């Protein structure tokens, strides 16, 4: 009898399809200020990147994202970094971010609560949302060359926004 609810849980999860809208969350940034997403989101698109200082693929991806953030800044695209570092590494987030050249906002999620709420199950995970916070695209992990696909997706979403 216990197998029936288990099977229902599994089957229902297979047939539930992805859809979503994120919510206007509030976190502390690396300058210790409380920030709402709505205060810093992009005019057209917002690219949200979950990362950590201990995550190898994250560190490989960050220089590429920094470059993209500068390229798309004038087109209404705002990049936001969310560090999921625990207290063990929190002191390193700000100097690491600055030394790698990040100029976009970096927020802190040390308890992993926002990560869980937004269905983020690994780092790095990158999301693109529109001005209504509708989730348009998710990219998990980072391998060499992924920056090309992410850039193409941002350009594609910008075209659809203009249309």
């Amino acid at each position: 009898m216990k197998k029936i609810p288990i099977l229902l849980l599994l089957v229902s999860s297979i047939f539930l399809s992805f859809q979503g809208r994120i919510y206007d969350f509030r976190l502390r940034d690396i300058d210790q200020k409380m920030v709402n997403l709505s205060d810093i989101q992009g005019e057209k698109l917002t690219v949200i990147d979950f990362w950590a200082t201990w995550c190898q693929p994250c560190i490989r991806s960050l220089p590429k994202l920094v470059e993209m953030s500068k390229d798309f800044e004038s087109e209404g695209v705002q990049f936001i970094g969310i560090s999921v570092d625990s207290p063990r590494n929190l002191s390193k987030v700000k100097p690491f971010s600055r030394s790698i050249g990040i100029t976009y906002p970096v927020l802190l999620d040390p308890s992993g609560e926002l990560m869980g709420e937004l269905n983020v199950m690994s780092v790095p995970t990158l999301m693109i949302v529109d001005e209504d916070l509708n989730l348009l695209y998710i990219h998990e992990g980072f391998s060499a060359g992924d920056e090309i696909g992410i850039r193409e997706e941002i350009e594609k979403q910008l075209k659809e926004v203009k249309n």
Partner: protein
Amino acid sequence: MMSGNVYSQFGGNNLFEFQLGNVPNSEPAALASNFNQLNLHYRYKGFKASGRVEYFINEFSERRYISPSQLQVQYKTKSFLFKGGNYYDMIGNGLLLRAYDIPGSIFESQGYRVKQGFYRDLFGFSGEYSGDVFRLKVLYGKPLVTELPPTVDWKERRSQDLYALNPGFTIGEQNIDLNYLYTSHSTGSHHYSSAHIAGNLPLDFSYNAEFAAELGTGVPIFSGSESTHALFTSLVYSGLHAGGSLEFKDYSNFSLGSGFNDPPTLVKEHSFKVLNRSTHLPLLSNERGFQVELYYRFNSGHMLTINTSRARNDIFDLFVFEEYFTELYMPIGESASLKWFADYARDPFKSEPRRYATGGIYETPVFGRWSTLAEIEYQHIERSGFLPGIVHNGLLIAGLSHGSKFSASVTWEISTDPYLTDDPSTFEIEKGRRHWIGVDTKYKINRSHTIALFAGQRRGGPACTSGICYDVLDFTGLEIRFTSKF
């Protein structure tokens, strides 16, 4: 499932894992087990309700369960946040309290052999006011003892009560928080307090400091081994190309309750496996030390990291842990990269007077969206104590991936560690070499579903992730993971 109107939304995720195999030298060798975690949430304007259901099935009846492990309601406005049920929170830098969730992870202890999600939450309620200058948090909760699985009685897993009051102020770029924590358990009750200040200084400097102590003990703070206190300080420089942090710790008898606090360890959290397994675990009963980490980014995009840490433990004897680490990240061309590291450590508490390690990762696109990865790590340990001698650990990973759509890798590990090469069923201590070889593949079916497959042998041992260190079990067999998001 429909998302409803723009102000309401139903969603969640599911993690399904099936294993056919076991820890080496355990019976049966081909143990079939299934773990599943389903998370659901509903949002409507400022209101949120969420829940988590987990189950674990295998042939042993005492290791099976199905339970609703979390339920939460939350209401949020611009200035207020109220939570009831299962929730997460942290006070200051974690000196007094840190509840956490590690999404997508599964925990299994050697003792119970029961799988569960990896989290330490609170069950109770909290209320929070956040203004521009003043903020106040009040919370009550029963922290979860993560090491006890859901097959253990709920009261035993949450046997402690916590009450906390946390007023705070923001003055310009400075934050000041005063914290009070009261804990109650059948063995007794305790009062703790902490003061936490953090803020920005001129010339790209910032600082963070927190001091916590138990109240009413009658023992002067910093008076010796009887004192119950925790001090953490950090000074950070965040320049354009260069940055660094200097941190200091002094912990004395500060592992609180069931271990619901998590003071900063001031030890590097390594992403390289041979170093990650050798991470120094803080002894909160008596530990003083510091950590310095420096970064420099060259105009070419190269990045140099240098880290050193010390931890002094004065328990039944004096132990001083030291580590020196350096790492160089080198971009190559448009998309390829090479990262190299070298590490030297002295860890007398583990009877490892000297430990050397080096290695690197090379990643490059090959054609189209395909890329390859090669990783090599080597560790040389001089060990004294019960099994003195030289230990070699090696690791090789070769991987191939197509963006985030598909990845496959082969991992080969080798060790001459007698604690690993020894056959526990004999009296002799077998020496020699032990190998592990395994294949991982991952395929993203669509935006909602991902399937991952592991086959072979996976080396266990100490592991640290998201700031939490625990023991991972060895595994030989087949493992399938299916994750869904909706």
